[in-house]
């Protein structure tokens, strides 16, 4: 960099960060010219948020350093970052919900020991900012009473109030309606015109293409490509993001779907804040068929699984299964759903699928602990459980094959095998399966995929939720794409390719078709 003309607004040099065994960031280099909007894309878990948190001083990098305006800065805390003119809008908002907008904005920048002065200054300053960037907001409103879009505006105001010249936004549109998102991009543009540098993380290619100047792509903790927005397209980006992973070919014949085991109609669900997380989803699970649900995570897939499995009650809609109708008024819990021959491999094995403090043989009956097979009149049949666990460990090649090992002490892949074996071996009619190969190595992936196909071929109905496009395409017979809680498209697996799916997942497919 001897002949650089203007220094970069921010430059990262060889940043690495490791969480325990996870290498979240590895040797990351990044240069962002001042006054540009720089997009960063990458799959879930690629390390984007970690990188931004390092820039913002929330985490400290293990190695590497950061330059701002050509000067090396030592960022050890958020305070350092703020002093260096960096502001961040986090993926999960960092707001004190029962504070007013004003209080949230001045928190940490109160301008004196007594609040009054700071509040008055902030009121005036916020008015100015609001006018300048059309960031209108009622500064005396309580934050938790504001819609998400406005809460995000508070985050932006927070950064600007502190005089941020570099603004990081981590998936800012994940929670926004299209209109709100449009408004946000107009604001970003206005900021850019004032010379603010913006780092924008998003999964939505349409947004990236529409609003950025440059784009960097991350994969598995590394920076894999940099592009100028003008010289790239969605297809290329999608490919860069997904990477040239080993193509997993699963040997399978065409599906021969027969009867319907489950049909769901207009399922909706509101979360505790009253936000609609699942929007009128209808689907059918047919014997001998794998139905894949594709989508960027956080678009309602988890809610769908939970509602189908009976873990969370639905708010609206109905499920028909085994001659029974389940509605919001007549719900069934997870145990009752299992009795209807439905099995469920949850997305998150640590949080849900396993009790990591249990020995393997105990975890291997979770959810089926009431089964007469394992229970005597009073005591549980430990021996039966252990024997069965031994058998399954052999059959599924769980290593080490030790039923008494604490579940926590198995590797991710082997934990997953324990869970899948438990659910599959119950011989269910329906198997709900979420992220079956998340964090599982290639050998195990193959094994798991084979089992899923085998299950289909024996006439089971399978619902597969995965954020891995490869996996969806390799396994599914039919694919639904979810976006923002709703099903936005349905494809026959034969018609699916990465490009189409990638676009649908980013909800950019229809724009594309219209423009094409």
């Amino acid at each position, binding site marked *: 960099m001897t002949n650089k003309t203007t220094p970069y607004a921010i430059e990262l040099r060889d940043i690495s960060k490791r969480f325990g065994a996870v290498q979240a960031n590895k040797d990351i280099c990044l240069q962002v010219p001042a006054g540009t909007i720089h997009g960063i894309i990458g799959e879930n878990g690629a390390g984007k948020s970690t990188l931004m948190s390092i820039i913002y001083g929330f985490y400290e990098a293990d190695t590497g350093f950061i330059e701002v305006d050509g000067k090396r800065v030592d960022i050890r805390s958020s305070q350092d970052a703020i002093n260096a003119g960096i502001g961040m809008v986090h993926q999960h908002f960092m707001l004190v919900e029962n504070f007013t907008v004003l209080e949230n904005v001045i928190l940490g920048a109160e301008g004196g020991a007594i609040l009054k002065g700071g509040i008055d200054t902030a009121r005036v300053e916020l008015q100015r900012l609001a006018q300048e960037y059309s960031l209108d907001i009622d500064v005396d409103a309580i934050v938790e009473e504001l819609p998400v879009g406005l809460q995000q505006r508070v985050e932006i105001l927070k950064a600007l109030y502190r005089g941020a010249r570099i603004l990081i936004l981590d998936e800012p549109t994940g929670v926004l309606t299209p209109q709100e998102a449009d408004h946000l991009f107009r604001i970003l543009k206005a900021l850019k015109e004032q010379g603010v540098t913006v780092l924008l993380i998003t999964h939505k290619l349409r947004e990236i293409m529409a609003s950025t100047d440059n784009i960097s792509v991350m994969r598995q903790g590394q920076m894999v490509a940099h592009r100028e927005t003008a010289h790239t397209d969605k297809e290329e980006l999608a490919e860069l993001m997904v990477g040239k992973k080993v193509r997993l070919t699963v040997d399978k014949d065409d599906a021969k779907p027969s009867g319907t085991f489950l049909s769901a109609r207009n399922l909706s669900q509101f979360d505790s804040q009253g936000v609609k997380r699942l929007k009128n989803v209808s689907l059918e699970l047919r014997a001998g068929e794998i139905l894949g649900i594709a989508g960027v995570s956080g678009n309602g897939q988890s809610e769908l699984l939970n509602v189908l499995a009976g873990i969370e009650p639905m708010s609206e809609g109905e499920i028909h299964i085994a001659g029974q109708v389940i509605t919001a008024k007549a719900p069934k819990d997870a145990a009752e759903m299992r009795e209807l021959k439905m099995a469920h491999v949850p997305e998150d094995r640590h949080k849900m699928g*396993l009790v990591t403090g249990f020995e393997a043989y105990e975890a291997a009956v979770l959810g089926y602990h009431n089964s007469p097979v394992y229970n005597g009149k009073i005591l549980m049949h430990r021996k039966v459980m252990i024997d069965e666990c031994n058998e399954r460990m052999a059959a599924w090649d769980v290593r080490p094959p030790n039923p008494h090992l*604490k579940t*926590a002490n198995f590797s991710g892949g082997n934990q997953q095998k324990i869970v899948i074996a438990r659910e599959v071996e119950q011989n269910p009619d329906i198997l709900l399966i979420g992220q079956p190969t998340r964090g599982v190595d290639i050998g195990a992936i193959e094994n798991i995929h084979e089992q899923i196909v085998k299950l289909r071929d024996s006439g089971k109905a399978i619902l597969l939720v995965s954020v891995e496009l490869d996996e969806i395409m390799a396994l599914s017979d039919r694919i639904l794409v979810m976006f923002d809680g709703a099903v936005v498209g349905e494809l026959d697996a034969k018609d699916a390719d990465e490009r189409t799916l990638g676009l649908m997942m980013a909800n950019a497919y229809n724009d594309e078709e219209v423009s094409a």
Partner: protein
Amino acid sequence: MSQAKVPAWVNIALIPFLNIMLAFLVSGLVILAIGENPIEAASYLIYGAFGYDEGVGYTLYYATNLIFTGLAVSVAFKGGLFNIGGEGQAYIGGLGVGLVCLALDKTMPFYVIAPLAIIGAGVFGAAWAYVPAYLQARRGSHIVITTIMFNFIASSLMVYLIVNWLKEDGRMAPNSRTFEENAWLPYLHEFLSPLGIDIGDSPLNFAFVIALICCVLVWALLWHTRWGYQLRTLGTNPTAAKYAGIDTSKVTIWAMLISGGLAGFVGLNEIMGVNHSLLLNFTAGYGFAGIAVSLMGRNHPVGIIMAAILFGALYQGGAELAFEIPTITPEIVVVIQGLVILFSGALEHMFKDRIEGFFIRRSVA
């Protein structure tokens, strides 16, 4: 990266041992600070607790109460609930025992009274735990606060009942009348001396046997029944419990009922075993001591028995110590108890993280 490489004995033996040693060390410093010799104090303490027959009897008698309350805390704890209400539940459990004995001792034989008294202790103790449990399960009221409040309510209730209704006429102290002997739990020295085992004239009574039986039952319940399975699932991973279709509020309520019932059994030992009348304040802090016992015993019946005997020895040895060195009050035992709670409970990460780190580094290297 993981616990995988930390040997099991580190967690179940080394860390608790270090915690208790640190607690003893600090207690030793306190004794040193008040100008006494900790070694000498320790020798009186050990002699008092184990050095002679009667001392052993007393040690086990105190341990009986602590086993009950320790089990009570741990059953709730296994379900992720922190029951600070052992004191109140024990108190009310004693009321149950007392009422049974007072009602029946004149008319019924021992073998009728005893099972009814056991039921009385359990049911009353459980009933006292029920309200906080219900409020936690269905209304989300914080069980720690409600159980604390219920301790106070229990103590006022007992004063009211004993002073106004149960006190024997013409007696000064607020005690009920003394039960007839057929409502007394037999002393163990009556059984043991014919066998040639001498525990002196100690108050150790049949309740100790009941406590041991409870340990076995709790062990079986927690690790060998379906209900125990559900409880442990709930306690370690509530999300997994929901996933498994476990009715969490039902399990919560039952866990507290059992916990309260176990605490209530303190009444058997104290009321039916030793005092033979219903009196005030017989719980004497055993409910709180149960927290230390259960923390130290790692919430396992075997650990609880050992911890209870250790604390029983401290109580008994502490009394001996205070007898021999009057400047040291038996309250030194309370200090040790508190330090155990501090080091093996609140400061568990202080050692744990470092020691595990050490073993991990060693195994990585």
